[in-house]
């Protein structure tokens, strides 16, 4: 019960090849006196001319450098020096968590400079790898001009506001999980907890999120970035990575896989592929190896089951299905699906709100046979309303019937939008689901065609 949702602390475990390396711990003191604990990994033997290419590894919220040890060991075993450090307010580091804000970015810049200045580490060929909160730090570091030569971000955000407070409604379950993970070490989070969980003051939340989001700076980022995002990740949806994929100026690659925050896990069943791709990306951009990763199709989506993957030259082709929702109650169903579908893109629900009283949020949860497909929420007003739904890649088998549950919270077992025990009422009229799906599903099951 210490954390509401497994949304924050992410322990990324990769199988590590057994190759010799050294690991040395230490502490670096930042300009404001904050002490950051670090582990420095170096391959055994003499460094090549110009030093080892380097990777800065950044952990998730509520975690520490120890959580990325297995990632560091993979890179060091492939000939990289790795610096893993506990961000301020994390692990044994001092200071306060400020949600990948300017102070964390300043730390990142200072540590990258120190790392690149080590005698055995390359001055110029240093990349960054970050997961979740660490991924946000990497994006924000790139936006601030930290001179990484290549970057990899896993299950993270580019626009914090749209990730956590889409349409001005907090994903209260997710935000509560994040708050619970770090409130004790973050006066900033504690001070903003009630507003963040209940989205009481959207303007203040936007002001908090803006300097912690790389979105506005993406078109200026020329560093090669490999984005790894989960198919179904209720904390950071696929749209967060698509922002990066469609907006950065430099080389980019996106893998949408089977890992992530709740309801997915870290690592996923495709951890081996993710590790191989991670190493290959840095091998190309930091070591200059012509391994072809830069010319391969830039976007790959893993199938929902099995080891299948489908790659695309750009954004995958999609189509919009317009599905009538039968009934006028709070739970409605579509007709039986005549063929399988796989969601991709921002779907919407149009719903007419006839009347309401003390109903601060209207949450729509789309389910297929009791399994959440997507969700979204609005601050309801009378009249026709549009609810934008989160972008997850969910396979729905032929013969399924989709249902939409409306309410003050997401429908079980979806914990993204938790309620507050409000006692209001709402009357809804007609509703229509516009579901964006892949033109051709990437998941193939027996009888799915």
């Amino acid at each position, binding site marked *: *019960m210490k954390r509401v949702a497994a949304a924050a602390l992410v322990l990324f475990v990769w199988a590590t090849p057994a190759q010799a390396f050294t690991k040395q711990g230490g502490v670096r003191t930042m300009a404001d006196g904050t002490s950051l604990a670090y582990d420095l990994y170096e391959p055994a033997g003499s460094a090549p001319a110009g030093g080892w290419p380097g990777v800065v590894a950044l952990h998730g919220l509520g975690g520490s450098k120890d959580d990325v040890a297995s990632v560091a060991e993979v890179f060091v075993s492939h000939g990289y020096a790795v610096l893993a450090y506990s961000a301020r307010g994390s692990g044994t580091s001092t200071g306060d968590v400020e949600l990948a804000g300017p102070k964390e970015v300043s730390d990142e810049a200072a540590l990258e400079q120190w790392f690149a200045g080590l005698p055995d580490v390359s001055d110029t060929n240093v990349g960054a790898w970050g997961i979740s909160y660490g991924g946000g730090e990497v994006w924000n570091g790139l936006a601030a001009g930290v001179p990484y030569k290549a970057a990899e971000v896993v299950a993270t955000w580019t626009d914090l506001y749209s990730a956590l407070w889409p349409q001005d409604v907090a994903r209260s379950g997710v935000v*509560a999980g994040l*708050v619970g993970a770090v409130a004790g070490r973050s006066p900033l989070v504690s001070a903003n*907890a*009630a507003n963040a*969980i*209940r989205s*009481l003051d959207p303007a203040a939340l936007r002001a908090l999120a803006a300097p912690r989001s790389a979105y506005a700076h993406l078109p200026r980022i020329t560093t090669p970035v490999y984005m790894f995002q989960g198919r179904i990740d209720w904390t950071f949806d696929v749209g967060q990575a698509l922002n990066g994929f469609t907006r950065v100026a430099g080389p980019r690659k996106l893998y949408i896989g089977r890992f992530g925050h709740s309801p997915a896990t870290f690592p996923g069943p495709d951890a081996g592929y993710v590790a191989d791709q991670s190493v290959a990306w840095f091998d190309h951009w930091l070591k200059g190896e012509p391994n072809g990763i830069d010319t391969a199709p830039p976007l790959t989506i893993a199938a929902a089951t099995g080891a299948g993957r489908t790659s695309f030259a750009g954004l995958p082709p999609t189509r919009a299905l317009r599905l009538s929702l039968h009934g006028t109650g709070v739970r409605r169903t579509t007709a039986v699906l005549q063929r399988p579908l796989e969601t991709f893109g921002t779907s919407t629900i149009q719903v007419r709100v006839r009347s309401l009283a003390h109903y601060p949020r209207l949450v729509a949860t789309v389910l297929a046979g009791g399994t959440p497909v997507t969700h979204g929420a609005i601050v309801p007003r009378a009249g026709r309303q549009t609810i934008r739904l989160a972008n997850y890649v969910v396979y729905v088998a032929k013969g399924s019937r989709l249902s939409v549950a409306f309410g003050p919270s997401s429908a079980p077992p979806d914990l993204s939008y938790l309620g507050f025990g409000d006692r209001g009422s709402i009357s809804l009229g007609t509703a229509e689901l516009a579901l964006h799906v892949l033109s051709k599903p990437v998941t193939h099951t027996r009888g799915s065609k």
Partner: protein
Amino acid sequence: MKKKTAAAAATAVAALAFAGSAYASFAPKLVVGGTPGGAARIGVVVGNGDAPTARTTIYVPSAFTVAAPAPGTALGAVTATAAAGDLAGVVLPLTGELEAVAPTSTTAAIAQTCGVAPAQTWSLHVSVSGQTLDIPLFVEATTAAEQAAGFGAKLVVCLPPPDVPAGTPGRAVLGAKLLSATFTSSAVALPAAPGDYRWTSLWTPYVPGTGQPDAAVTVEAQALQRLPVKLTTVTARKRVVASRTVRSAGKKRKVKVVVTAVGFASAVTENATHAATATITTRAGKKRVGAAKGSFLMVGLKSTRLTVTAVYDSDSFVPAGAVRTPADLAFHDLGAPACRATALFQGVPCLDATTAGGRLADTLVVKAYAR
């Protein structure tokens, strides 16, 4: 400027709503369901604005059997909701299992603090997103006076205070205040004999913000089970002869047609008295032909399947989350007038009584007259 003032006021109201410093009331509810011979399903509800509960004791009527399962036995499903004060009052939906457990030093300490001498220790083992919480539920033997009052066992739950300052030893995790819980216990078996069974419960809240139980505010809440609950349907057929004009070889002629008129009437009874509320739907085949009473004609059919469904005493639910699901324990609130203060409790106010609801279905085949 007006808009800004309104927004500020709304923020202030919302902030007060979860500040948890002043509770207006303490009016818990007890709900008990289950089918004769089966396991009891017990629900409790506390208002979000009520003072936090320190202790509740549920008195099991003597007619119910309370078994002593071995530690490690899973007894049934649990759903619960709790408002997390540390997380802006967000309501956490908790799910899990009721288990019989061996006493531990932790459960023994809670029992001692709470003044319970457990005959058995059960645990409401619940979780949300993989984070678990174990709430001990003690089974305690009844005293001679309690037995004389008709009770065979007591189920006691003591909860930690949620609204004391963070860091206070023994404070509820996340400042969570229990709002509702529903659990099934296969160790509590309903009697097979018909009867009106009245469960009762005593509830003591905390003095807000102190962590001290407020014995002076102890209240009683009851649940009435009228067993068995039955759906009965009677039908009556009538042979009706009508005529129909048909064209044969270019000529019109009248032919005799036999039609079956079917009348039906259904009712839900609880221990042979009508349920407080019931909504009945009757279908012949797939077609809705009426509610509790009605009639329809069978034309050109040899038989039809009459399906009667009844939803009774289900105008309220014990919350298992913010969104209702069909699995939630339904009840009808009988209110304070139906709460009969237990003399044993010597003047403790009896605030509420409920009766559990549910859904029943009956299917019968009606044959048509052939000729």
